[in-house]
């Protein structure tokens, strides 16, 4: 007679009602299965003892809720961020691990946007972990509260069969990982995203409304600023994604053309300095942003300081920015070299992402 599987026998311990009558009847009369059930019970009990939490669930719910409320309230509404309406985010977010990893990757995307000679102006302190797609490697800020933001094309991330095709489509050298970190195996998925472009036209009227909404008056814009435009280009980009055994991304290596900015009529720095003066931007952040130059030597990042630690490291002679979530679960490193930004992120530690970064061929 067929014996039930070990999995069925294991379930018998916890949820006998979930096991079929036939299997239950079999086990009752089968000494071999009874022995396996006994083994399973012994193992389960032993593991249960060492995994016991000693009453960890006895939490101070009120204090915990207060803490969470403070964290969410302190977070600026970066939430209207990219993608909520897109079909691509829902499946991603239904996987919790992805949500966690997305944090690092969205940071990477934001870093891309902020990289090089553009937009030191717009820095958030928080980034919402909303999506984990290659599109985030090529990202631009929403300035719509302060003017008109026109975008060039539909977002489209394409999967391609291999690195050669990704290179062909993007014109980038797709980096080759020489040695995968421990726990990451198999072949990556290759994705590409094309170039994107956005034009921001400053609107004094819109900015005044935004200022009023935050309860303050808009400082008078400098002459010529109203109606002045800057154009921002970013991409194309390519990403290689390795998934873990659970299906969640374990390592992402992305490369994209770094953003560039063009202005029409009004100097870019003037737009930046004026926007810096608008209500709502904390003084310390504004002061920091003013130090950013337009020569691409600084890589400002929208880093949520309460969740992420930043540091610097060297990757092949280039200064790189290292991000690490406070809980140590995720790390990312990114750097800009000759107009190309490269990022390595994953559910890894800093040493591992740096090892991957330094080993890229």
């Amino acid at each position, binding site marked *: 007679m067929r014996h039930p599987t070990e999995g069925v026998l294991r379930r018998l311990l916890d949820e006998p009602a979930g096991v079929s009558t036939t299997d239950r009847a079999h086990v009752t009369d089968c000494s071999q299965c009874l022995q396996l059930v006994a083994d399973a019970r012994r193992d389960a009990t032993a*593991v249960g003892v060492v995994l016991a939490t000693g009453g960890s669930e006895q939490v101070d719910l009120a204090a915990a809720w207060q803490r969470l409320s403070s964290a969410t309230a302190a977070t600026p509404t970066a939430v209207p961020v990219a993608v909520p309406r897109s079909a691509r985010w829902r499946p991603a977010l239904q996987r919790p691990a992805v949500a966690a990893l997305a944090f690092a990757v969205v940071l990477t995307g934001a870093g891309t946007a902020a990289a090089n000679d553009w937009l030191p102006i717009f820095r958030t302190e928080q980034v919402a972990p909303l999506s984990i797609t290659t599109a985030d490697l090529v990202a631009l800020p929403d300035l719509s509260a302060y003017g008109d933001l026109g975008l060039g094309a539909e977002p489209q991330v394409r999967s391609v069969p291999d690195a050669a095709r990704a290179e062909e489509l993007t014109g980038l050298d797709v980096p080759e990982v020489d040695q995968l970190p421990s726990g990451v195996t198999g072949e990556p998925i290759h994705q590409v995203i094309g170039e994107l472009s956005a034009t921001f036209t400053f609107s004094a009227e819109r900015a005044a409304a935004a200022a009023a909404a935050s309860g303050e008056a808009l400082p008078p814009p400098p002459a010529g600023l109203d109606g002045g435009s800057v154009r921002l280009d970013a991409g*194309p980009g390519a990403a290689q994604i390795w998934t873990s055994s659970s299906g969640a991304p374990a390592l992402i290596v992305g490369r994209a053309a770094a953003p560039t900015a063009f202005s029409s009529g009004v100097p870019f720095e003037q737009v930046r300095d004026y926007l810096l003066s608008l209500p709502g931007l904390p003084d310390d952040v504004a002061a920091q942003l003013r130090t950013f130059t337009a020569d691409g030597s600084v890589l400002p990042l929208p880093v949520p300081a309460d969740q992420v630690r930043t540091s610097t490291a060297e990757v092949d002679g280039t200064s790189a920015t290292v991000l690490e979530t406070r809980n140590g679960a995720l790390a990312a490193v990114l750097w800009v070299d000759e107009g190309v930004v490269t990022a390595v992120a994953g559910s890894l530690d800093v040493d591992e992402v740096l090892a991957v970064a330094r080993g890229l061929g």
Partner: protein
Amino acid sequence: MELVQHGRTAPGAAPSVPKTVGASTAWEERRVPLRRTTPVAARPDLEQVFRRDYPLVVGVAARVLGSRDAAEDVAQDVFLSFSRSAVPADEARGWLSVAAAHTALNALRSGRRRAVREETAATAEDAVVSDVADTVVALEERRRVRAALARLPHKQAVALVLRHSGLSYAEVAAALDLSPGSVGTTVRRAESTLRKELIRHASSD
């Protein structure tokens, strides 16, 4: 003033991608004025879900990390992510549990929690184990099991922790995209591996 990540594709250096002109409807809908001072529009059911599931989430993380403080840190991160997600409320329990397990396992794997974990575990252990020698043995046993837990295939480890945190087989199956029939097998394998680790340790004493 807010910064929003936004991905867009235009052909650019990708000549074979057909160009689409004009902003998408989805984008237009997103163009709402933003204010820095606006609090996060957390999902309306957040507090209800939090009060219902926070102890569970802490418990899941604590089983992995062995430290309540570390587990609460993980739980806070998990709920922060959840607050911004569109996970349906009826899937929240599974989502939160898996997120907690993954995050805690990653932290465990990184080894950064080790110091605080052992320190806190030692404190907790003192309350229940009177004999100092027993305490030392128990701590060592837990350390070894957690090291083994970190080495398990991720899905096995998560299934194990979820099951021992009280999720039903159906809930574990749904949360991990497993067939209900394979949950028992997955948990069994994990327990067998960990038990061997315990025996190996005991026999080496």
